[in-house]
């Protein structure tokens, strides 16, 4: 079954109802947010998903973690379907963690950073580090260790999202996702609220975790510089469709699709000439 390992998305289509024509009873024009997209992420591989804002990237991610139901297509992880899971088969998703695009609203506003992270261990005892569920001191140490890995001070542990900066929320989300020891990690704009130095620290962490655990990583971002640094392959989306997919070197040096070329030419590098 080796060729079925990792994430396999085939002909995925997702449709939303769309806004009403008028008032509360108007007709809705459905929006096809994702249109017959196929995409694989192998173990130990990072696939970047880039493209137009509103092209369906987050929708694909939400479909993989079961937050929206596709209208067609299939999603498999390690050869097992992730669609139409009966409640008792939900464990199939246990290996998947996602860092959401909007870190502040993704975190439970009532939970401290520490509680958000250790909650993951309550829900999934099998991934919890030795002893953290019963021993408070060990739990605290494990939380502080995870926070340190994403560049956060132990002080952050006791704070709720409203008392954290945008980038601090984002890093709590990352720590929470890593606490689950996932085998597939979906990062939706996971480093966009970080200054470039902290971002480098987090990217190095993600790369090392990916290598150590043979993680599959689906990396959604608008930052093409980051893509060039971390991705093995890049998939480009526009209007719900996947327009091009290539290994990272080819994509940046010999883009095939007009839209990819348009994206690359709109991307600027540091310009310090006066």
């Amino acid at each position, binding site marked *: 079954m080796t060729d079925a390992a990792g994430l396999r998305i085939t002909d995925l289509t997702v449709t939303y109802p769309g*806004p009403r024509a008028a008032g509360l009873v108007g007709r809705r024009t459905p929006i096809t947010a994702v249109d017959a997209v196929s995409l694989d992420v192998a173990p130990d591989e990072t696939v970047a998903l880039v493209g137009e804002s509103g092209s369906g990237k987050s929708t694909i991610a939400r479909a993989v973690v079961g937050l929206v139901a596709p209208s067609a297509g299939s999603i498999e992880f390690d050869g097992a379907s992730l669609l139409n899971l009966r409640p008792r088969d939900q464990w199939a998703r246990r290996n998947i963690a996602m860092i959401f695009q909007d870190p502040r609203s993704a975190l439970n506003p009532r939970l401290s950073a520490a509680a958000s992270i250790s909650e993951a261990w309550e829900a999934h005892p099998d991934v919890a580090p030795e002893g953290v569920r019963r021993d408070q001191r060990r739990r605290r140490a494990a939380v502080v260790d995870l926070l340190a890995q994403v560049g956060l001070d132990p002080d952050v542990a006791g704070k709720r999202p409203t008392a954290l900066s945008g980038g601090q929320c984002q890093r709590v989300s990352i720590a929470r996702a890593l606490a689950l020891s996932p085998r597939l990690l979906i990062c939706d704009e996971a480093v966009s609220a970080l200054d*470039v130095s902290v971002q480098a*620290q987090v990217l190095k962490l993600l790369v090392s975790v990916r290598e150590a655990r043979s993680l599959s990583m689906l990396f959604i971002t*608008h930052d093409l510089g980051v893509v*060039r640094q971390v991705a093995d392959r890049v998939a480009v989306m526009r209007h719900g469709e996947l327009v091009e997919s290539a290994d990272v070197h080819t994509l940046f040096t010999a883009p095939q699709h007009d839209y990819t070329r348009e*994206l690359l030419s709109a991307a*600027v590098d540091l310009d310090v000439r006066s």
Partner: protein
Amino acid sequence: MSGRVPAGSRSAGTLRVRELRITLPGPRGMADVVDGVSFDMVEGRTTGLIGESGSGKSLTAMAMVGLVPETAVVSGQVLLGDEDLLTAGRARIRQVRGTEISVVFQDPSTALNPTMTIGDQVGEILRSRGLSRSQARERAADLLEHVGIPDAANRVRAYPHEFSGGMRQRAMIALALAGGPRFILADEPTTALDVTVQARILDLLGRLRDEDHLSMLLVSHDLRVMSHVADDLVVMYAGRVCERGGAKAVLNRPLHPYTDALVRSVPSVHVESAIADPLPGSPANPFDRPAGCPFNPRCPRAEDRCRTEVPALREIAPGRLSACHFAELAERTSDTVPRN
């Protein structure tokens, strides 16, 4: 405090932040999380605000329009012309916010009203400026179209959760523009936008700057964009300004080691680059600054003096300020390498 400054230093076109201090309760008592921040937003110019995550950029921007956590104590001045907004009173601040000074919040999903359609939210602001219901509806669709929402005429009827991250960000920008402000405080306004939409928005803001003399405070971690759109640059570390000056000059030849580290960490799009080595040690905690220079535990150039003496922010060269003890030396010897 009278809230007024001598008439001689009056300038209606500039928003001036003076010695802004924001004190918040922390685990070890009250702490100056933002500590003596000063800078100007000059008419028709874009001021970039960059710095470490958690260094106080959003708190600073929010305090300028009276939005601070309930537990915060704020001091200093925020001068709109000769009026100090910090002492202006709630009613006045509410009037200023959205009309003279608009905010693009870092978190559009928490800033937008989840129970109102995007069109109604933009329309509400337009109606408060005297437009009729139908005029407001039309103008709202126009504005959303302007910021690049596809099919805006239909999408005005969508709720925030029906938008993608980048569409919410654009809606937030439309909301900020609807009030016809002279100043915009934009906190990470383009993190969820693809580079082509981003270019379009920055272009739009650039035109408003040139034609309507709008001034903008742009908080962003994207130094690549910053180098293209900012005129002036303010760099924060641990709640303090560590460097200030013309944007190009600062990014070309930083006079503070923290800025230098940032510039060296920027990933390049058009050339292959490895992930930069992050700064050693952990990011600063503004609730618990070390003695001396707040950057000293991580600074490659730190000396004994840095561990005891707080470096003052001072002018090193015309228009260039730095809070590093050795900035004069760096300026003279140009031991920071100019970049391509």
